[in-house]
């Protein structure tokens, strides 16, 4: 078993490489993905090895990246589009929600657009505005799109390959503040044996309350669980991984045991993923709940200036405060 220690960013790079090797119809397209290797270097070295027709530096226009990828998909290609930063995806919004998401449905199944739209998302890197947003709810709200978020190098490596292999159009969210965090990655495991793409996973078992997170907040939730241990609380942490469709089976099971649930995400709370999750848990686990499902989220403000982002983002203290509140009910 070829296991290596890789950063999350490098793990995606290796996953993309395998996808390009595996299927000649896979192409990567976006701004700066070629010679530069992407602004985060996620596509580093791929154009050099696969050529300009497989790793395509495009003009600077997001709608054009997604719209031409639709045409390439209709032609039989499997494009992987890179959007440089979360806040830059909005110029492509129409193409994603009106075109990509609906092609299969509108054509009564005759047209497929097996695209992956990679978006480095979330804050915590001290960037200027439009570089730290969490747009997942916009896409999760759109039928016809699947939305996933990776949180560990191993998941990043396998999930990107699974996303490329899927015939569904997938918005693939990468936690940019975790790009440099390292973990063990099994590079040779067959994709067929990998944990399913659209499945949540318990990443820390516990008895007393359930913490739900995805993407960059999984690590924060894990840190909170470790800290809560010192208070004698045994928290279960679930990495949602799939945001649309939600895989709430493991969540219901967990909450029915623990009776308490706190959902954590960076995106604003109002109509965010946490709202939907809280409603669904209430429907399914009503008689098991010891407290309402609580949310610890970003605020309903525009993403603030970098010197304020530590106040905006859910951090260890805010998550622990949410845990305290659920036990205080």
């Amino acid at each position, binding site marked *: 078993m070829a296991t290596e220690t890789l950063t999350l960013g490098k793990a995606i790079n290796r996953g993309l490489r395998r996808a390009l090797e595996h299927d000649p119809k896979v192409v990567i397209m976006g701004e700066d993905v070629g010679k530069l290797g992407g602004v985060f270097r996620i596509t580093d070295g791929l154009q050099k090895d696969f050529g300009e027709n497989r790793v395509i530096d495009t003009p600077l*226009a997001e*709608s054009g990246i997604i*719209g*031409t990828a639709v045409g390439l998909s209709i032609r039989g290609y499997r494009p992987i589009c890179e959007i440089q930063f979360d806040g830059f995806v909005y110029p492509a919004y129409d193409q994603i929600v009106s075109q990509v998401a609906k092609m*299969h*449905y509108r054509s*009564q*199944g005759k047209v497929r657009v097996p695209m992956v739209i990679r978006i480095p998302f979330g804050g915590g890197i001290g960037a200027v505005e439009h570089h730290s947003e969490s747009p997942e709810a916009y896409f999760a709200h759109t039928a*016809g799109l699947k939305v996933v978020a990776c949180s560990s190098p191993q998941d990043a490596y396998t999930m990107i390959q699974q996303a490329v292999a899927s015939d569904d159009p997938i918005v693939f969210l990468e936690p940019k503040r975790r790009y440099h965090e390292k973990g063990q990655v099994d590079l040779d495991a067959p994709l067929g044996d990998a944990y399913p793409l659209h499945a949540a996973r318990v990443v820390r078992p516990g008895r007393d309350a359930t913490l739900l997170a995805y993407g960059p907040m999984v690590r924060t939730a894990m840190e909170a669980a470790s800290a809560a241990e010192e208070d004698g609380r045994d928290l279960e942490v679930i990495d949602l991984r799939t945001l649309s469709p939600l895989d709430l089976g493991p969540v219901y099971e967990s909450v029915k045991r623990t009776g308490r649930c706190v959902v954590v995400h960076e995106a604003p709370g109002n109509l965010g993923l946490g709202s939907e999750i809280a409603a669904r848990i209430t429907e399914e686990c009503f008689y098991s709940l010891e407290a309402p499902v609580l949310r610890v989220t970003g605020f309903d403000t525009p993403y603030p200036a970098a010197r304020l982002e530590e106040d905006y983002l859910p951090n260890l203290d805010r998550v622990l405060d949410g845990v305290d509140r659920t036990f205080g009910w």
Partner: protein
Amino acid sequence: MAKGDPAGTARGRRATPRSARSGGKSPGTDLVQLLTPEGDRIDKVTWSDGTEYSVDFTDEEYRGLYRDLVLVRRLDAEATALQRQGELGIWASLLGQEAAQVGSGRALRPQDMAFPTYREHGVLYCRGIDPIMPLGLFRGVDLGGWDPNEFKFNMYTIVIGAQTLHATGYAMGVNMDGRTGTDDGEAVIAYFGDGASAQGDVNEAFIWSAVFNAPVVFFCQNNQYAISEPLERQTRIPLYQRAAGFGFPGVRVDGNDVLATYAVTRAALDNARHGQGPTLIEAYTYRMGAHTTTDDPTRYRIASEVEAWQAKDPIARVKAFLTRQGIADDAFLAEVEEQAKQEALRLRERVLEMPDPEPLTLFDNVFPNGSPEVDAQREFTARYLDSFEGSVH
């Protein structure tokens, strides 16, 4: 007259294009025309870049084009009538644009791929698709029923201009597949209107197609109005001239001249299939009816303008030419009329018989790989429908 627009776009004051007045070979023009509104043939037209446009049809082919024009107009009229009678929710009529659509549609080869808007019923007809198909969309029983891959004619696109990027991406794929550079190479055509020329997507498609040398023809039917907005609200230069700024050829053709639209489109498609990249065609035409059956064009345009364009009718001029040349006699014209009438009647009968879709098909084809959430909603809905007495679902 709008500044810099030689054909004249000012409302009610459109001048007759210079080429319309000339007979025989034109030494250079700003509008390619091969058949005048009076039905006079122009053998050959030289565009300002030196390209020569001409057609050489057999009598049978001329008659075929006439038949297409009449049928397409008649079917469109039937659809408009069906809407007025409450059988269609809405209809986007092509009245006045038959020549632009039949000319360009007949210029396509079987291997070429088309990306339409929602008004290309004439091109759809030329691609061999059952004319009932778009009526399902406008009746609300489906979202477009044909197979885009089988007919090489993509789904209608309602969002303005979005399909020009799809066409460009598809054309990039044609390049990547090595399917250009020969006589049997593939080309792609993207249809859009004058209003779409203002959209970001269309401009991005121009940029993409230029830098990737994509084999795509942008076929803009300038019908003078984007719903109620006149051309002056979209541009201050003739639309075909936009192409120069993106680095590829632009040409303006009389969109009411089926011969010229055929010649210009065929040449542009051939250039594309031979690896010479994109072309912008501005088919200068006029939407004789409303944008759709929901608007009232008398609120935004004057009768004299409509009358001026009636004199340039795309079918009347072909009829005059065919009759004068002895290519078509009264018997032929009557036979075409009768065929159009019968096909329209058949279309009407079939529309009235179109069944509403089964409720549970609502959940079909959301994803190729399905979704547990959608599946659960389908099951819930099935149980709900079953709960009604006498339900067959």
